C-alpha cells in the first residue's frame, strides 16, 4: 500500500455475503470441468444409433475409432488409443472457446484466481500483471476460438436435423430431439452473443454511417450480448443435460420416449 493512503487496518468493511456468488459459480464450473473430463475420457455412449442422437460433446466424431454410424463427416483422424479422447478436436475447440470467453474469464478469475473475489475485497496476491504476459496473454486468441465454435454450432445444427429421424424410418421426434433442439438454441445464443462476434460483425468499424448493414448486425448482436453471461450459464447446463440424456439413451439405461415415430 502506498504510504499516503488512509491507514485502515480492516481489509474490507463489506458485510454482505460477497463470497456467495463467486463460491456458487466456482462450484458450478468445477462440476462442469469434472463432468466433461469424465465424459471425454469415457469414449463411449455418445451415439444413440436407433434414435440418431449424437452428443454435442463428441460432435463431430471424426476418428476411425468412432462407433459405426456416428461419423457424419468421414473419419480424417486415424484410430486413437483408448486413453485419448476420440473427441479431442471438439474438446480443444469448444473447451478453448469457453476457457477464453470474456464471461468465463471474469467468472474464474473471481472464483479461482481470487483476483478479486468480489469488488473492493483485496486479492491475496502480492504482485499482479493481469493478461499482459504468457500464459494469460493467450486469451487474446478468443476470436479464433469463436470462428471454430461457430463452425461447431453449424455441425450441431446438422446433428439436430439428423435427430429428426424416426426410429422406424422417416421423420420422428423423441424427447431427446426436443432436448437437442433446446440445447442448440442455447448454444446458438451463447455463440452469437460472444464479444468477439460483436466485434467481428461490426464492432471493429470506426464508421457505422458507411456500413449500414454491418451496423444492423452489430445492433442485433449487441442486444444479445447484454445477456451473454446468462447464455453462458444456461448453455452450460443444457449441454451437460443433453449429453447426459444421450449417454443414458445410448447406454440403454433409459429408453427415449417417442412423441412422433
Amino acid at each position: 500500500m502506498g504510504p499516503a493512503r488512509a491507514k485502515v487496518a480492516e481489509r474490507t468493511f463489506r458485510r454482505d455475503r460477497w463470497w456467495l456468488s463467486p463460491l456458487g459459480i466456482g462450484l458450478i464450473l468445477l462440476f462442469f470441468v469434472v463432468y466433461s473430463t469424465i465424459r471425454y475420457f469415457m469414449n463411449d455412449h455418445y451415439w444413440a444409433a436407433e434414435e440418431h442422437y449424437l452428443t454435442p460433446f463428441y460432435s463431430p466424431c471424426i476418428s476411425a475409432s468412432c462407433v459405426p454410424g456416428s461419423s457424419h463427416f468421414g473419419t480424417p483422424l486415424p484410430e486413437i488409443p483408448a486413453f485419448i479422447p476420440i473427441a479431442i478436436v471438439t474438446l480443444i475447440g469448444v473447451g478453448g472457446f469457453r476457457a477464453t470467453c470474456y464471461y468465463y474469464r471474469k467468472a474464474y478469475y473471481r472464483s479461482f484466481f481470487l483476483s478479486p473475489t468480489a469488488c473492493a475485497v483485496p486479492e491475496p496476491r502480492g504482485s499482479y500483471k493481469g493478461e499482459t504476459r504468457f500464459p494469460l496473454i493467450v486469451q487474446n486468441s478468443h476470436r479464433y476460438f469463436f470462428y471454430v465454435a461457430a463452425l461447431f454450432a453449424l455441425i450441431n445444427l446438422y446433428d439436430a436435423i439428423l435427430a429428426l429421424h424416426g426410429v422406424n424410418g422417416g421423420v420422428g421426434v423423441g424427447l431427446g430431439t426436443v432436448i437437442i433442439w433446446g440445447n442448440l438454441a442455447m448454444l446458438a445464443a451463447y455463440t452469437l452473443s460472444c464479444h468477439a462476434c460483436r466485434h467481428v460483425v461490426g464492432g471493429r468499424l470506426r464508421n457505422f454511417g458507411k456500413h449500414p448493414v454491418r451496423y444492423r448486425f452489430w445492433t442485433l448482436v449487441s442486444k444479445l450480448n447484454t445477456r451473454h453471461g446468462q447464455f453462458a450459464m444456461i448453455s452450460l447446463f443444457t449441454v451437460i443435460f443433453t449429453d447426459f440424456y444421450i449417454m443414458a439413451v445410448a447406454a440403454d439405461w433409459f429408453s427415449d420416449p417417442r412423441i412422433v415415430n
Partner: protein
Amino acid sequence: MGYDLSMRVWRGDVDSGELAPYTVPVEEGEVVLDAVHRLQATQAPDLAVRWNCKAGKCGSCSAEVNGRPRLMCMTRLTDYDPDETITVTPMRTFPVVKDLVCDVSYNYEKARELPAFAPGPPDPDGKRRMMQADVERGQEFRKCIECFLCQNTCHVIRDHEENKPAFAGPRFFLRYAELDMHPLDTNDRRQLAQEAAGLGMCNITKCCTEVCPENIKITDNAIIPMKERVVDRRYDPLVWLGSKIFRRDERTEV
C-alpha cells in the same frame, strides 16, 4: 420518522487515522451525505468532506460506505437497517488529504497522458460531418461524471500501488474506446492503450461497471471492444495483414 443513526467515520490524515464513532439524528428520506453534513454541523466541525451538487452529478462525494465505493449523496439510508452501524471511509486507492477527502490527481495525470482528439481537415464547406449512429455510439461514455469510483475499485491499482505508473484505469479506457470508435479522429492509440495505458492488466472482472453511478457498461462497451481492437492491431495476424494490404487504416500511430 427520524431515528438516531450510529456511524463510524474515518478521521485522520496522511500520518495516522482511526474510525471515530458517532450517533447522528437523521430524517426519513435522507442520504449518507446528509448524515455526514449533520455530523459536521453539530458535532465535528473540522470533519473534511468534499461535495458539490448533492444530485449525483458532480462526482465529488465519492467515498466507501460499508466497504462499498459509492457516491454519498446517492446512498439512501433506507438501504440500511436503522440498527446497523454505517461505516464511512475515504477511497482506499488514492492518497488521503484529510478525513474523507482524497487527492485524486493520479487521474488527472492519466488524463494528460492520453493524446487528444485529432480530427482531420473539415469538408470543403468548413463543416465536419458524421452520421447519427456514430454520434450515438460515444454518448454512453460521455455520461461519465469523473467520480473516479471505478478507478478506486479497480483491483489492478487498489491492491497494487506499484501498478499505478503503468495503468490508466477504466475511466480512461472509456476515453480510449470513445476515440478509437470516432470516425473523424486521425490518431491510432491502440498500441498506446496496450502498452502505456496497461489495458492488458485489466482482467475484465467488471468491478468498475458494478460501481459506476452513471451505469456506464464500462467493461462490456468500452474495455472489451478496446481489447478486441488491440487484438486487431497486435495479436491477429490475419487482420494485421489485411490492414497492410488494403490500407484500411490511415490513422497515425501515436
